[in-house]
Every structure is written in C-alpha cells, then in structure tokens.
C-alpha cells in the first residue's frame, strides 16, 4: 500500500502586539487576507496541494474558536475524507506537561508515529505565499538532507525583529541562523526564513524524544546548522505579517495584478472556506475603481484602492478609499473611510468620517458601532 509521503505540522507561535486590536480575539492565522482568505489558508493550501493528508495544528487555547469556525470539518481542503487526519493540540498543554515533568512534545511524537510519513513539513503562521511543497521535497531528497529550509530574499523593511535570517555557505548549506534584531551586518536584502522546513520524520522523532523544547520553530532553527541540511529559495510573491502597516500593505499588494496573479492564479489553488452568497450588486450610482470585492456585497457608493470582504454594504454617497473592510460591515450613506482597517460586523452611521493617514492607519474594532468622526494623524 502506498503510504503518504509527507505529514504536516502547522504552528501558531507568532503573535504580535502591533497587530492589536485585530488579534484581540483571533490568532494571527485567521486574520483576513484579500477579501476572502485567512492567513492560514496559504499554509494549509500548500499542504493539501502537496497531497498531504495528515495535519497537526498547534493552537493557543484562548483563540481556538476562530480557527474552528474557519476550518469546520475541513471539507473545503479535502481533510474530511477517509485517510485524512486533522489533529489539534494546545500550546498550553505542552507547558502543563513540562511542569509535570512529562515530555512537552509528546503529542507531536504520537502524531508523527501515527502518520507514518517518511517526511514531515513544519509551517509557521505569519507568511502569505503559495509554496509548492513537492518541489521542496524533491530538493530535500536529491540533497539527501535531514532538513531543508525555505527562504526568500527580502528587503530589510519587510522583516520583523524576531524573524530569522539564514546565512548561507557557498554550497547553499546553512552557516548560521540569527534573529533579525541580532544581525550585526546591515545590508539591503536578507535571506529571510519563511518558517517552512521539511525534515526526515525518523530523525525528528528521535530528536524530539530527548527535547524539552516548547517551541518547535526554535528547535528547528537551532538544529539547522548542525545537521545535513540545505535551503530552497522561494521566488514567488510573499508577504510577512507582523504589524498593522505590514498587514495593510500585504492586502493592498493584491491590487497590483502581478502580485495577485503570482499568489492566487498559480497552478496551485489557494483554498478557503466557501460560503453561499449572492453576487455582488453595483448600483447605477456606484463608482468602483482599482478595488477587489468578495461576493454578497451591495455597493452604492464610491470605492477606490480598497479591499472589501463578503456581505458589506457601501451605501449611497459613501466613500471608501485606501481601506480594508473585513466583512458584514454596514457603511452608512455619505460616510467616508480613508486609510483604515475596519474589522467584521461594524456599523458606521451615515455621514461619519473615519479618516486615517498613510502613515497613521486607523482601526475599527469588530462589532463596533461608529457614530462620530474619527481622525488620525495631524
């Protein structure tokens, strides 16, 4: 019988205070992206597009609702069929185990043994990219590696302080790994780790059995320069989410058709939760330019340079410009929204102005009802 070649672990280790209040009640993984996706869709789609059928997800106890809401039974990703296996575990459980003197990663080892895949891929939760894991596996096998790490050459202004930078030897193997904030040499471009690793499962189990680590990512980064490993350079579109400007920019990047095509129209489909919605209606007075809109919306006002998620109403005379609207929001007549991120289920009263600045984005929290003007910046 043919066994599954790769099993996957998706981590949720990264949370950033700079993304608040958007991540108040949801992990970074389930932040909206480009009207209808969530950040986790990209990692999960890479996984299922590589025909991986066993997925282990590490989540934080307090924020699990949003992940379950989105994934449901995993039908859209084909994870509800026989032979597929979704497993959830909590970080807090690892901490508890460690305190009780047990092996913190015991659940992960059990999963790896049950999945019976010779290779394991680990993916982090903060990058938006469309990665072909089978191509990475090919390199991993050809190089006869214990571990293969994926990186992207990225500009310094798109890297977070806690991101990891790979310094490579001439032969492409990893010389050392350092957090970006600890890098002494300053250049314009760095080999930014995308937090994706393919490892030999047998080796991983063996190592984890003797490890007290509470962070798989830290464990993998530490091992990388010490074992037979090499790298895979990802050349497609990527965005790195770590604060409001990076999150905002990643979304607006989709209004550049080159980025949009690279990420969403590659040969690997990005899968997300499907919902039943009516087609978006544009009234006779609507005026929409350079924007992306999901279905179920009613657009009667003016929309420019913006991204609008499902079931949003933009009423008569309203103006939405350089804004991200995250779904089921009611934007009242003659209101104005500029340079702002508006979370789900917000109501904005008619005539209200929410005016941010390019360097001072405003955020409207989920479920809020805005009755008075908000101005950002000067």
């Amino acid at each position: 019988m043919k066994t599954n070649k790769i099993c996957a672990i998706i981590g949720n280790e990264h949370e950033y205070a700079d993304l608040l209040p958007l991540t108040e009640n949801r992990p970074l993984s389930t932040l909206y992206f480009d009207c209808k996706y969530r950040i986790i869709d990209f990692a999960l789609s890479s996984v299922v597009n590589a025909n991986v059928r066993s997925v282990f997800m590490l989540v934080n106890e307090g924020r699990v609702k949003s992940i379950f809401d989105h994934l449901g039974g995993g039908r859209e990703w084909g994870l509800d069929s026989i032979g597929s296996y979704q497993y959830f575990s909590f970080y807090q459980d690892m901490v508890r185990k460690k305190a009780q003197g047990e092996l913190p990663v015991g659940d992960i080892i059990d999963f790896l043994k049950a999945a019976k895949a010779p290779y394991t891929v680990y993916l982090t939760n903060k990058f938006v990219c469309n990665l072909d894991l089978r191509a990475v596996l090919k390199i991993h096998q050809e190089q006869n590696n214990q571990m293969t790490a994926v990186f992207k050459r990225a500009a310094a202004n798109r890297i977070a302080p806690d991101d990891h930078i790979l310094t490579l030897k001439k032969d492409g193997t990893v010389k050392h790994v350092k957090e970006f904030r600890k890098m002494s040499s300053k250049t314009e471009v760095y080999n930014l780790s995308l937090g994706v690793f393919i490892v030999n499962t047998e080796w991983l189990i063996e190592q984890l059995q003797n490890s007290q680590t509470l962070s798989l990512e830290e464990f993998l980064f530490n091992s990388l320069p010490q074992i037979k490993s090499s790298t895979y350079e990802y050349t497609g579109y990527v965005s790195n989410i770590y604060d409001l400007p990076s999150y905002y920019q990643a979304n607006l990047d989709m209004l550049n058709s080159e980025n949009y095509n690279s990420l969403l129209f590659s040969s690997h489909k990005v899968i997300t939760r499907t919902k039943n919605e009516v087609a978006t209606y544009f009234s006779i007075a609507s005026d929409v330019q350079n924007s992306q809109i999901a279905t179920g919306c009613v657009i009667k006002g003016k929309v420019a340079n913006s991204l609008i998620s499902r079931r949003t109403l933009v009423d008569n005379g309203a103006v939405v410009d350089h804004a991200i609207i995250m779904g089921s929001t009611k934007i009242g007549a003659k209101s104005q929204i500029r340079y702002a991120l508006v979370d789900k289920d917000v109501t904005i009263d008619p005539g209200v102005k929410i005016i941010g600045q390019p360097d001072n984005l405003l955020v409207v929290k989920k479920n809020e009802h805005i009755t008075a003007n908000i101005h950002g910046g000067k």
Partner: protein
Amino acid sequence: MKNEMIAVILAGGQGSRLKDLTKDSAKPAVPFGGRYRIIDFTLSNCVNSGIYNIGVITQYQPLTLNNHIGNGASWGLDHLDSGVTILQPYSNKEGSKWFEGTAHAIYQNIDYIDSMDPEYLLVLSGDHIYKMDYDQMLQTHKEKKAALTVAVIDVPWDEASRFGIMNTDENNRIIEFEEKPAHPKSNHASMGIYIFNWQRLRSVLVNAFTKEVPMIDFGKNVIPFYIKSGDNVFAHNFSGYWKDVGTIQSLWEANMEFIDDQDGLNVRDRSWRVFSKNPIAPPQFITDTATVNASMVVDGCFVAGKIEHSILSANVQIKGGSLVKDSVIMPGTLIGKNVTIKRAIIGENVTIGDNAVIDGTKEVAVVGNGEVIGVKPDED
C-alpha cells in the same frame, strides 16, 4: 427511516428552446444570476422547507448536473438521514428504460421512492426560478385530505392559453384540467408542482403500466385520471415571483429582473437562502479602467471594461475598452479588448476575440458554451 415527504425533481429535459445553451447540459444545469444553476432554486426550496431526501431524475446530458449536485453537501444534504440521489435511466432484464414522460420517470423509480417509504411524494420540475415553502403546500394537502394537490399561480389572462389551466370550484377543488386551452375558463396555471399520497400514486402507476393504459405524463394523463376517478384533487395557490426560464427570451428577462432585486425574490434574505455549489475563486478585481453600474459580479472576475446592467458569473474576464450591456456572461468566459456585447447571453467558457461585436438589440443574442468567436489563429 420513515420520511413524511420526499421530493423528486424532474431534471431530465433537454430544454431545446434554450438552443446552444443546452447543447451539452440539461436545462436545470444552465447557469443563472451569476452564482447559481437553475436547479439551485428548487433544491434550496426543498431544504428550506425541511425536505432532506431528494431524488433528481436525469436523462439528457447529465454530466454538468451530476457534477454540480455531487453528494449534496452544498445544500446540507450530506447529513445523517438526508441525501440527494441522482436517478438515471438504467437497463434490466426487461431491456433499457428511457424515461418517456414525467409520470413514466416516477414509475421507473418506484424502487427509490419505496426505499424512502414516504407518506407523501413531492414532484418538482428543475427549471423554474422561485422561492416557495413546500411545507405550506403540504399543510394544504393534509387539511383538504387530498390525494393530489397541484400548486397554481394566477397568470395574466392573455397568457393563460400557454399554460396548463386548472379550473377549480369554490372550495379550490380542481374539477377540470385543460392543457393550453384556446379559450381558458380560469387563469390558475399549474406550476408543475405536485404533492401525491404516495401509495395511491404508486397503485395508479403500477395498475396503468401493467394494463398498458397510457399514464406517461402528469399533465396529459395522471391529473385527468385522478379527476375522472373521483380522487380529491386540490389547488394550492401561490402568489410570489415564479418564472419559467424555458426560452432564451425568458431566461434573459429573468436574469435582468434578478439584477436589481426588483423581482420580489428577495434573494439576499438570509432566512431563505439560495444555496449553490460555490467554486473556490479569488475576489473580483475591478481595475482602474473599469466602470461597473447596475450590475452583478461574482468571485474570480477580472473587469477592465465597461459593464452596464449585466451579470458576470464566476471567473469571467473582460479586457479594457469593451462594453457589456444588458447581458449575461456565464462562468469562465474570456472577453478581449474593444468588444461590444449588447442584449446577449454568452455561454460558459466562451472566448471572444478583440473588437468582436455581438448585438442582440432585435432579438437576444446567444453564444453557446465553449464557442470561440473572432479569435485569429495567431492570437493567444
């Protein structure tokens, strides 16, 4: 498990009056309203009315329809004690059994219906656009202690001779049925929606086919037989939006009425949702050269041209300088630069080359599925 009522949707018709739109798929599978296929309205009515076991009878070009319905998950029909079953013609020791008419199709699928063991059988056609609570109709059926209840809608008198007309008495009992009468006595048109007491219908069909009495069609044979045999046949009056989309003109009209939500369907009402199998596609991209007004657009569309009072279905691309007016563009169609399309229905996966003109000002223009128009061989 015992079901009070199950539904059978007759979806086998070719719909030849839809011309090239049905050359490779059955009428109920024709796209509608940007997001749907025609059968979605009937299927959604069923689940919204609490009917969770549905047989779909197919015959003509069933591939698209089968693929669309799948295991019924899109309508929540993959739950416990629910399901959608595709019923296709099959052969057995007595030879192959093509469905010769609506009642004959039910007769051929007695095994399926018996396996569901329903008290009542709801017979539907899969080619109308409407929202209707079949449970209300069942209540009428039970109150009147009817053997057969036929849903009727009052049509304008001058159109009545195009329909099957039910003449009723003061108790709403149907006393006469006339198929397309030249001089109609009433304007109660049959909607092709029937509730039968299953055991009675079963014995009528078995008896007739055993004795070779013609019982092929509900309208032609079964309803007149019920009336003649003194069975209780009642009308159930319906008064919402109901549109037969059997012709190019009516399909185009129904789509145009759908755009502004002026048809009374109230399609955005979340308490009676219309479900469909939704493709996974990125959000629609309205570029800075586009203008979109009085139109409906769905996921996966890329719009650089001018769209006026039209419907764009999933994954349609329209390049700069093109005008689409009063038209319906079905899924996957690509339209080049400086194209003009007016009063047209463009089928699925059509490719239209630069500078083409499709003008249906006199009569609604149709381009069939998969056609390629005005593309030079050296163009990409």
